[in-house]
């Protein structure tokens, strides 16, 4: 069958990935409410939590010593949450625009589509989180970038988790239509209490700690506290997070492809409504 194969039929095409990134870029640039939304919530979050941190650090010796743990946690949580939203909203844009059929009928492959959503998640994250970190520095004197090289490990682990959740949530919407849209907005909040963002793992009941340690973000937030409170970078925690992330990432891809097949069996790709 080689005679019929177009030059770009096999392998991953950067041109197609670029085309999709360009499509989302055009969309962002054409819509100031979309741009504003990227900055608005992160800015509100950091200001609210920053003042709370200021208040309790005055009243508590522990928080006076552990300066920045709340603000740091808020920023890292936003990387996790906004990373997933950045991925999933770009996907939802295709559902809202009823454009998914056009894409699925084009030579764009699922892996290329997902890679373009990941790139967009990074771009959207940068637009939202960089101003947030500058606000933290300006209002509360917390220099997020002073975390230094460990920040790269924190960031990579969080963004991988956010993509895994984003891929999984997008698969659910692909299979079940826009009726499943609320999952995109709420799924990450199921992780929130167990990932121990604002408190150490020991706070949880013993049995729940096993669940918490199955989640990569738990390692990141524990690692952040270790760095900010004890000034120790726990490379072992980051390595564990990376291993679990690799498993989650592969699993979410497999689930997405299974849901795509199911959508094709079910005939839901051309009817992406409720």
């Amino acid at each position, binding site marked *: 069958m080689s005679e019929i194969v*177009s030059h770009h039929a096999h392998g991953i095409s950067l041109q197609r990935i670029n085309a999709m990134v360009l499509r989302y870029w055009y969309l962002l640039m054409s819509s100031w409410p979309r741009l504003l939304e990227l900055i608005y919530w992160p800015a509100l979050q950091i200001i609210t939590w920053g003042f709370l941190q200021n208040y309790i650090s005055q009243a508590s010796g522990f928080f006076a010593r552990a300066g920045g743990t709340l603000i740091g946690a808020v920023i890292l949580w936003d990387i996790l949450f906004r990373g997933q939203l950045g991925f999933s909203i770009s996907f939802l844009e295709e559902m809202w625009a009823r*454009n998914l059929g056009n894409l699925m009928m084009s030579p764009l492959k699922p892996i290329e589509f997902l890679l373009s959503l990941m790139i967009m998640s990074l771009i959207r994250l940068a637009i939202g989180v960089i101003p947030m970190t500058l606000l933290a520095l300006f209002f509360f004197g917390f220099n997020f970038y002073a975390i230094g090289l460990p920040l790269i490990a924190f960031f990579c682990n969080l963004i991988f988790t956010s993509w895994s959740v984003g891929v999984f949530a997008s698969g659910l919407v692909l299979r079940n239509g826009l009726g499943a849209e609320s999952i995109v907005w709420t799924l990450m909040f199921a992780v929130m209490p167990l990932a121990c963002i604002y408190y150490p793992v020991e706070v949880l009941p013993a049995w729940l700690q096993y669940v918490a340690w199955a989640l990569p973000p738990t390692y990141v937030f524990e690692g952040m506290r270790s760095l900010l409170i004890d000034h120790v970078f726990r490379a072992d925690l980051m390595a564990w997070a990376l291993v679990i992330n690799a498993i989650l990432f592969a699993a979410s891809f497999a689930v997405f492809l299974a849901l795509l097949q199911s959508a094709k069996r079910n005939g839901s790709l051309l009817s992406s409504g409720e």
Partner: protein
Amino acid sequence: MQQRGTGQAQAPNQPPVADQDGSAAIEVVDLVKVYKTTRAVDDISFRITRGSITGLLGGNGAGKTTTIAMIMGLVLPTSGRVSVLGAKIPEQRYDVLGRMNFESPYVDMPMRLTVRQNLTIFGRLYAVKQLRERIDQLATDLDLKEFLDRSNGKLSAGQKTRVALAKALINEPDLLLLDEPTASLDPDTADWVRQHLETYRKSHNATILLASHNMLEVERLCDRVIIMKRGKIQDDDSPERIMARYNRDTLEEVFLDVARGRLREGAP
């Protein structure tokens, strides 16, 4: 009319093994699609030769859209086989997607993007060479120039249909699948679209499969008509022979006969 050679997709010019004899742009064998308890497509078979225009006729729920979706690989058959331009669908669909395109009322182009931006993105997805020239050519052919830089959402229904057609032709496809290509268009625009499709087919020796409720459209455009009812093929022939077989003057009358279960006179 657009010229071959400007903005061609990066698809090979060689015909596939299965259609080197000039036939079988589409081959459907014993195709069945069951959704839970509904047999949407019920054991249909047909071959569509290269360079032909075939109309898929039938009322709502006849199985036209499901059939086209299975040909495109967007819906998986319950059983049966589909091959398109020599490639098995869905297994080898990425081998031929660059040589196909489609238009359907079930999909839209992104509304906030301008016409030019939309065509640029789809041109890149289809790896169209000399994309700027190709877009200019389509803008001339389909009379898009005056709103090329306007958002898709601000266009009239007729303009949107022309843009969707431009997207469907961006890669100069060998096979064009059209689901209700002139639905919701005024007669003048609909006629204009039909003319363009006819010209495109002739100039590119393209194969067109279109599902339609518009009998005049099918009569005018199609060399062959496949009439479907409740997932089955009720008849399959040229419009003239079908009308003769039913002893009717128009396809619309034939359609009503089939839809209402009237007996055919002299039909096999």
